[in-house]
């Protein structure tokens, strides 16, 4: 008997859904095992009935509910609650769902400030009022899924590697826990670490790292952090390269920015990174700013508007 799956996207970009499509030919095998009952990106099941005359949102019952994206407005919340009600297992797919992701950078600002800027850019005719007819009001922040509904399985990644998506889907079909990587990005990084150096300051990623020509394998290149380039590998959950492969950004000779979120679910990538730098004698003031260290994990109240605490 096949497993019924419902899928929804919330405050997201669709990259997680494309990661499912990127299963490639494995997708065709998955379709033999899984029965999608609701998935707006590829199928036409509607919230309010197929003739559009229903009054309440309804999603079919399913064994597994997959949700990508965080929760930013009242519609996201309504969908998440309905999915929780109708699905036995809820999977948080992608770093927006697990930790807020890039859109949670907006948590540094009030919703008022976000709307203010968006509707006053240089190309915009300033409106009399912001949209409020038939569009869901924004919540006060961008929330990770588990701040609003219970989550049974976390699958971080921006996006999660298709190998992990496959591993999760097949495990759910076989009713067993999936094997997901748990260590840091550095754990799977092939670059050369020589231990503590004389490095005092970090430089911005404005020029190429040092390596000996295009053909030099990555396992001959010095660790980017040891070259003085900020790399979030030490404080970021590993596995982005899929089954046993090199971290994806490193394979482009580009430093990690933390897209799999913290190594432990409750970790704080900014504090952990600043601590790691300080304990190695690197001046944290050499970074141009710190907010970006939480660019993938600003939900769970880690980022918030500057003055709100005092004024509240």
């Amino acid at each position, binding site marked *: 008997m096949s497993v019924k799956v419902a899928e929804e996207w919330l*405050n997201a970009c669709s990259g997680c859904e*494309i990661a499912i499509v990127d299963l490639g*030919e494995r997708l065709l095998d998955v379709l033999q095992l899984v029965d999608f009952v609701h998935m707006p990106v590829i199928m036409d099941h509607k919230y309010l009935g197929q003739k*559009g005359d229903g009054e309440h949102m309804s999603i079919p019952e399913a064994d597994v509910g997959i949700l990508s994206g965080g929760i930013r407005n009242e519609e996201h919340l309504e969908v998440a609650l309905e999915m929780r009600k109708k699905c036995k297992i809820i999977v948080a797919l992608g770093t927006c769902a697990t930790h807020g992701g890039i*859109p949670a950078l*907006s948590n540094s600002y009030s919703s008022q400030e*976000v709307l203010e800027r968006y509707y006053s850019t240089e190309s915009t005719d300033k409106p009399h009022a912001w949209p409020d007819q038939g569009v869901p009001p924004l919540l006060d922040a961008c929330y990770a899924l588990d701040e609003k509904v219970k989550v049974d399985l976390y699958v971080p990644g921006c996006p999660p590697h298709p190998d992990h998506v496959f591993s999760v889907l097949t495990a759910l079909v076989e009713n067993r826990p999936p094997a997901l990587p748990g260590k840091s990005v550095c754990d799977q990084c092939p670059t050369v670490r020589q231990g503590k150096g004389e490095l005092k300051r970090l430089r911005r990623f404005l020029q190429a790292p040092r390596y000996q020509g295009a053909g030099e394998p990555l396992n001959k290149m010095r660790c980017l952090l040891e070259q003085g380039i900020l790399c979030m590998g030490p404080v970021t959950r590993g596995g982005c390269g899929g089954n046993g492969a090199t971290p994806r950004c490193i394979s482009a000779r*580009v430093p990690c920015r933390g897209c799999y979120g913290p190594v432990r679910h409750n970790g704080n990538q900014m504090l952990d990174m600043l601590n790691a730098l300080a304990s190695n004698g690197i001046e944290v003031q050499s970074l*141009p700013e710190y907010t970006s260290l939480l660019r993938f994990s600003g939900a769970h109240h880690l980022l918030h508007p500057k003055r709100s605490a005092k004024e509240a």
Partner: protein
Amino acid sequence: MSQVINIAPITRIEGHASIAIHLDDAGNVRDSKVHIMSLRGFEKFVEGKPAEELPRIVNRICGICPWQHHLASNKAVDGCFGVSVPPAGRKLRELMQVVSHAEDKLLHFFFLAAGDFVIGPDSDYAVRNVIGIAKANPDLARKVVRMRQMAKMILEKFAGKAIHPVAGVPGGFSKPLLEEERVEILKQVRELLDFALFTMDFAKTKVFPPYLDMVQSVGVIHTGFIGTVDDDGALNLYDGRIRLMKGDGSRVDFDSLEYTDYIGEHVEPYSYSKFPYARCWNEGFSLDLSDPKGIYRSNCLARLNVADKMATPRAHEELEEFREKFGRPAQATLLYHWARLVEEVYACERAIQLLEDPEITDDNIRAAVEPKAGRGVGCLEAPRGTLIHDYSTDENGLITRANMIVGTTHNIGPINMSVNQAARTLIKNGEVDEATLNKIEMAVRAYDP
């Protein structure tokens, strides 16, 4: 009694939108609205971030076209920092641009749109999709999945990350292309071109013919168009001047730095998304079906309409055939599907041209950049239309101001008009069934929003 019919959510598109159709007492369409439900606020939260980090932040605007946001952002930061990209770096960026276009069009045609044509607009919703196609025509499905995956893996294998890429950097590209990689990718792209030509032929002979009546009736509106052309007036996806064409064929070309002189964004109370319009036409903004004001369209049909020619031979042949059949500018909305496949041929041919250029394997791919105060407008053609990233930086190279106009946004007004037109054409005397509502959605899907 007046009644509202809700199509919620609009499906087989990217993101959150719904349609509300308001009927009058007689059951005829009084009005319709397309509600765009999401707002994330990138324009605000990129402020204060180091500009060189933006190409790795704003790619999250869209998981289907992250390469375009990534590359437009790099171009904008190049402008802020006043850097010239070495030729090989520029060519690698364009290669990624056209290969990702090729992948995207296969995704849209076969995975999102084809259910309506291959299975049929009236069929049951449970099979009117890619899963239904996989069951009805497993050989075709396997071929499609394999070809799309090959395009995607070209990006992933060479550039490290295909979704939310990182390999474009201000000043150029992060890694050079090795000769053995060039040879391998060239072989794969040639196979993609064969598949693009097969798809074009398959669509023209088997997919489109039964729907030509529908093409002339559903979602048809009359608007202007926008796209990017090079100095010869040929369609260019990566660079050039922006061309804005009126419905009567008259047109103006401008540099992306001047975009605010030509394009404005109107705000309506029922949609978080803004409504770009042609400010330079000095006629204001209106979605009135019989007398629209300032409305132009973007994406593949628009690009084909504004271009004088295609820069590659097979795509140019297809453009000539398209024009002979449908005129210039072609206005029928469902022709977006046809135009998309012509562009698929172009994207593959252009990738081959780039890969046959010996300079593409040059080691000099990245100029070092210095953070400084400046302004840059990065512009290119995303699958869904002309994409504009406009940034300013302070003396430390931190972002002080960002404005973005995303490809699909240009089409928000036209999508509203096409839905309105389709609803008025298809709903009479309160008679509404599922197939009718799906046909109204097809008027949205053509735009691939």
